[in-house]
């Protein structure tokens, strides 16, 4: 075990626990627990959104994918970033104006119906779980590699820590852990990028020229098409990337941590600058790893390329930088998983328990208790799933979460805000069609089936040809919502007008409501 790495890991854990301790003193009401009482500034929330977004998949996954397959890895960076325009233009402000604690609140503001709330909560929990299991599997593999701890114990350590953050510190702790981590991650990435750029004499043309001869792909490293060969699959992936973000529960609940729509907008703008700067730097990470670590060493450490960034840090800055980057990667996973636990737990405790089981008649104390127990429950379930999912591909689980979010959540969010005729039946059918079709298409896709034994989860011929279901399931989600609406009575026009006014002016939120 590496001494420097170990002490930096302990330092990061200690720092986050101190944050949680101070946050726990402030967390008294359900509003504190779910949304930090809407008290974050635009800058703080922007950093926290960026932190929630720059997960292990981004930091470790994209750097590795660029290092191994060149340009195609950069598609992820572009899609993840441009997605924020969808969030900024269409979703952030109305969501802040209509919602209280969860995404279901916003839909229920228009359709006061248990079915709608229940299905929305179900979607949130499904998406959060896929995302969470992906992060936990990544965390387990990372810690095993860095500290030599068994996979099962690694997952347990991460699981216990994230539960502590959420249960004791709620959204306040989760946000501050996220902010601190975002700053550390940006710092680490910046240092490595500058070092890589210096090695290429601060010249882009030199960098492109050298990397060409450094990888086995040669010239084609610089061209698209190494990883994504089927044109439709490329487009389908890009569709899910750009539309998925606006339906991700742990990103959406971030908009309830600020006081009004202008602050929500500001936080998206800050997040977009930070995320953009970060994703530009993934080029340096990927190219640097390809040129200075080499494909053989990257693949030897982890077949999916997930260790490219830490290995690059080791080559450039020795043991200390390696330890620092690894500890930050660990903090990244912890913080993102805490955000996911919170989004799943709030969907369960707030939407199912408080609104459906108790019909809105639960005392503040009972609600708090439910939220905390729900967090513990969600954490236990995801730890158990992560132990079984050890062999699953992390990128596959994340892309599944994006596809479900884009197919099941986004159509309903948009139609609730923008479509006058939309009604309860449409919302329920849309969400169910999006959820079921995206899951079903993945089940029969090449991500699950491969004729070569061991290349995918099951051996056999895939019925659906695309690895990413977005191009079919997203239109199906919209279609389900539209057909469901057309086959039933139109919704109350006055009520839609109420939503229209509140969503666009924030009139329902003003004066500390």
């Amino acid at each position: 075990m590496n001494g420097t790495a170990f002490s930096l890991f302990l330092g990061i854990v200690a720092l986050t626990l101190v944050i949680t301790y101070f946050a726990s003193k402030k967390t008294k009401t359900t509003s504190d627990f779910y949304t930090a009482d809407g008290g974050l500034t635009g800058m703080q929330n922007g950093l926290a959104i960026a932190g929630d977004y720059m997960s292990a998949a981004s930091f470790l996954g994209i750097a590795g994918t660029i290092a191994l397959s060149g340009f195609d890895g950069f598609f992820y960076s572009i899609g993840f970033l441009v997605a924020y325009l969808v969030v900024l233009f269409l979703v952030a402000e109305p969501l802040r104006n209509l919602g209280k604690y969860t995404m279901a609140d916003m839909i229920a503001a228009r359709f006061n119906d248990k079915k709608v709330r229940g299905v929305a909560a179900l979607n949130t929990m499904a998406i959060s779980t896929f995302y969470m299991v992906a992060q936990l599997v990544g965390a387990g593999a990372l810690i095993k590699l860095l500290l030599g701890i068994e996979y099962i114990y690694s997952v347990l350590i991460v699981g216990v820590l994230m539960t502590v953050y959420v249960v004791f510190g709620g959204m306040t702790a989760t946000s501050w852990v996220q902010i601190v981590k975002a700053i550390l991650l940006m710092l680490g990435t910046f240092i490595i990028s500058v070092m890589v750029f210096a090695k290429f004499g601060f010249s882009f043309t030199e960098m492109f020229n050298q990397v060409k001869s450094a990888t086995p792909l040669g010239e084609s490293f610089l061209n698209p098409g190494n990883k994504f060969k089927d044109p439709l699959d490329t487009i389908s992936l890009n569709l899910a990337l750009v539309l998925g973000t606006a339906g991700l529960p742990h990103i959406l609940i971030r908009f309830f941590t600020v006081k009004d729509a202008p602050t929500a907008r500001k936080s998206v703008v800050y997040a977009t600058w930070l995320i953009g700067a970060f994703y530009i730097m993934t080029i340096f990470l990927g190219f640097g790893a390809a040129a200075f670590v080499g494909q053989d060493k990257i693949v030897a450490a982890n077949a999916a390329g997930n260790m490219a960034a830490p290995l690059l840090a080791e080559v450039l800055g020795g043991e200390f930088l390696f330890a620092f980057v690894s500890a930050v990667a660990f903090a990244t996973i912890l913080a993102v998983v805490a955000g996911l636990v919170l989004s799943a737990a709030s969907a369960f405790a707030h939407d199912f328990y408080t609104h459906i089981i108790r019909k809105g008649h639960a005392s503040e104390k009972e609600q708090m208790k439910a939220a905390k127990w729900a967090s513990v429950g969600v954490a236990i379930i995801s730890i158990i799933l992560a132990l079984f999912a050890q062999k699953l591909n992390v990128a596959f689980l994340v892309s599944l979460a994006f596809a479900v979010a884009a197919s099941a959540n986004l159509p309903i969010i948009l139609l609730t805000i923008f479509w006058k005729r939309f009604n309860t039946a449409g919302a329920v059918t849309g969400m169910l069609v999006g959820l079921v079709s995206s899951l079903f298409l993945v089940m029969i896709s090449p991500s699950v089936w491969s004729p070569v034994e061991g290349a995918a989860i099951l051996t056999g011929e895939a019925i659906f040809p695309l690895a990413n279901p977005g191009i079919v399931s997203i239109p199906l989600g919209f279609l389900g919502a539209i057909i469901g609406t057309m086959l039933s009575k139109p919704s109350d026009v006055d009520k839609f007008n109420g939503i229209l006014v509140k969503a666009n002016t924030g009139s329902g939120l003003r004066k500390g409501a």
Partner: protein
Amino acid sequence: MLPKKQQNFEHSRYSDVVNTKQFQQLMAEKKRFILPMTVFFLLFYFSLPILTAYTDVLNRPLIGDITWAWIFAFAQFIMTWALCMIYTKRAKRFDELAEKVIADMDKEASS
């Protein structure tokens, strides 16, 4: 939870608000900005994967070994940041219009 003044606002009264000139202006200005911008950025975004998936035109080098694909990819970043700034500027106007609508609602509710 509505602020006190607006608590006596029935749903039917929101329909009156929707019909006011102020609110119609807010919606019209928003639509005129957001709709074309959204169409534009989606077209710009999807033109990259469509071009790389079906053609090789972007594989040609532009400066040294840097190909058009990388330049186009970088342009996506510039576009995102630029649209963010433009939107921020325009949103100030939307906020002003929204303030006016709310002020009228408050007046109406207390009368």
